[in-house]
């Protein structure tokens, strides 16, 4: 993966400053959702080869949650947005 990640708040920063949470594509179910919905969310994965969106936190920088769009097959990073901006643009 790229050694430098373009944080929307801090600019280009080393990748090691970021913590990767995992897929940003699964929608968190409502607290009272059925067991099946929670099972799907917690355990099941699409695990695609290609473009994915992930939640990253800039833990050694601004500590903001970000949404990083990258390719799981070739490690290209396409886009980094603040998580709030990414969610409001949908």
């Amino acid at each position: 993966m790229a050694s430098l990640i373009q944080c929307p708040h801090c600019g280009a920063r080393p990748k090691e400053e970021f913590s990767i949470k995992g897929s940003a594509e699964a929608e968190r179910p409502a607290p009272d959702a059925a067991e099946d919905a929670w099972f799907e969310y917690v355990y099941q994965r699409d695990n695609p080869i290609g473009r994915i969106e992930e939640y990253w936190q800039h833990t050694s920088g601004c500590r903001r949650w970000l949404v990083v769009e990258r390719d799981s097959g070739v490690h290209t990073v396409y886009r980094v947005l603040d998580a709030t901006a990414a969610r409001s643009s949908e």
Partner: protein
Amino acid sequence: MRYSAFQIFKNALGGNTGWKPVWREPEPKPKYDVVIAGGGGHGLATAYYLAHEFGVRNICVLEKSYIGSGNVGRNTTIIRSNYLLEGNTPFYELSLKLWEGLEQDFNFNAMVSQRGVVNLVHTDGQRDAARRRGNAMRMHGVDAEYLDAQAVRDMLPFLDYRNARFPIKGGLIQRRGGTVRHDAVAWGFARGADSYGVDIIQNCAMTGVRRDGNRIVGVETSKGFIECGKLALCAAGHSSHVAEMAGLKLPIESHVLQAFVSEGLKPFIDTVVTYGAGHFYISQSDKGGLVFGGDIDGYNSYARRGNLATVEHVMEAGVAMIPALSRIKVLRSWGGIMDMSMDGTPIIDKTPLDNLYVNAGWCYGGFKATPASGWCYAHLIAKDAPHPVATRLRLDRFRRGYLVDERGAGAQPNLH
């Protein structure tokens, strides 16, 4: 041909022109009783034990590249059964017992070397955990021995005993653990399976699955359609990908794990040692290279290469444990794709489809399990019932809440 000292002698007299390729390269037949998708160690072992133990002979193994090109030829070759949890210990112990008799069984030199596996401990808490693990192993009939600080020092004089932050307080050793020549495992199982008439189809990728309701009819491949009685998925690294062809979603993420080998050295490390204060494990191959590795990089990847940050982390852990490592040169590093399951434990089970079976989720520990995985998967496919030591490795354990969380580290792969 059965290999023996006599054959070596006889062929030497004949100018060594009598050796023949040890498996055929057949074209696929239109129909098989069992199609195994994935010609790695586990797929080949499954084919071998299906034919050798369970009398199922009309099998083909589909491999998208060549035999030994995947993780079976790219791992750190360690075998051990030092597991704590009930669902794991008997399974990995069966594997170790199979390793012990494997070369005689399939008549191929896999260079099984029981040189011992030492897990170092650095704190009182780690010592208690190691003793607990050792006791659990011994109650399952597995060998385990706790070494005090002096015993570790006598055995492994090259470790750093002056580290004030992480002093070496002892270690847990499994003397029956060790290393195996990994390529020979693939070749031995392939040769063994081929001798029973199993078709190993190399350079043939599965591209789709043809379904009729809840049954698998056959598989589409780059060499045409193949009808099958049963389809056995065995493509760790790409399990999600092949399962998706059958319309199945798995509790698995694919992550990259890096490994390293140094330049060849004179005999230096005669066992397998793991660091307790960082994730680092090392052994020395028979060619002299130090073979070592650490943690997964921690992000989803199918790219078969990792990040420099992880390389640096592994080297730091290694040098903290063995200061002399700072003076050796690394010859090669590589990355492989791991099927990371959500609890760190593999899956060998039936699926919601009638004649589809899944063997997946080996995380970074699939190599040591190769024979038992093949044996238990073959048992499941042949008898439609799980082998007694693999009953916890179910696909539906996540939904039902029966996780086998050996590391106890959390519910997502980059935590364990």
